């Protein structure tokens, strides 16, 4: 364990920066909410942000390695289940289980 005071200070610094990033833009952007452009952005951003976060999750996918099969298959299961049943819990569980089984038992690296 590194110095306790340092370890706590690091968390506090991270928390302060994170909170600032989450809270301060509201003060700056609230006056803009009535703007057409901001409304346009805000209705389309959620979908785009989710797509980007998904790519971020897959950013280190080893495309040229066989073990990329595990996340690729799990992704296919997740998408397939979700298009079929529209049940978020089922889709997440099915995809994660597929990945755990493949990554733990088949494509051990």
């Amino acid at each position, binding site marked *: 364990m590194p110095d306790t005071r340092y*370890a706590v200070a690091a968390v506090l610094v991270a928390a302060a920066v994170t*909170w600032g990033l989450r*809270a301060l833009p509201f003060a700056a952007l609230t006056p803009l909410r009535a703007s057409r452009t901001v*409304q346009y952005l805000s209705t389309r*951003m959620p979908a785009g942000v989710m797509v980007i976060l998904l790519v971020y999750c897959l950013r280190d996918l080893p495309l040229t390695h066989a073990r990329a099969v595990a996340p690729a298959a799990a992704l296919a299961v*997740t998408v397939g289940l979700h298009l079929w049943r529209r049940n*978020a819990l089922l889709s997440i569980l099915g995809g994660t289980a597929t990945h755990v089984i493949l990554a733990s038992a088949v494509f051990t690296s």
Partner: protein
Amino acid sequence: MHISPAATTGDRPRPAPAVPPAPSPALPPVLPPSSGPSEARAAFRASVGAGLGFVPLGLAFGALVTQSGLDWWWAGLSATLAFGGSFEFLLIGMVTAAAPLAAVALSAFMVNVRHVFYALSFPLHRVTGRLGKTYATFALCDEAYALATGKQARSWPGRRILWLQFFLHLYWAASSVAGALLGSLIPAGVTGLDFALTAMFTVLALDAVRDLRDDLPTPVLALLSALAARLLFPGQLLLAAFALFTAALLARHLTTGRKPSHA
């Protein structure tokens, strides 16, 4: 799995009959909309899907904390106060390497600066009270943003949004502490639980794209922005992708003649 439909978008009435209608509305109609316990219950149901993504990740985070030589309570402290999943994994390495606090601050800024964009659409105006607004911004994680800006959340009162954020916060903190305390018990051969987060964003992306109806260019622009950021700025993928995507949306808005939008 009867608790799950509230966590999906499938329980909303839609013109297309492909999706079965809701088994029950989120609120029993006899209750006044401000009823506290029912808001908590509805928020809980909406939070379960995300919680499923949080718990394995929190366990993994906690286990990594103690494996790295930090005390178990540090996992709880970080999960409660920093509450930013991806950055907290980075923070473990920085703290064990005794990185300067300025470097911690800069990294936290770079990883979490994406939250700046959330102020454009997160419904903070529905949350009442100074304390409520304070907590809503404090606990504004990716998943809270995703759920609170989804179409199913358009009628949510602020109280339900706060409950949702509280549940997400609780899942993360509790599973982090549990992971730190139990981490050594997880068999070393079991890996890949972290895919839960990927699966969750897959589900949220599918639902959000479907909410846009036929607006295909938006997800395509997002995908192109993310891929371009992956190729050009791999170290700052999220920041670059959000910036590119916002610029692309703005350009599209300005060039498509500002047709009145139904959104």
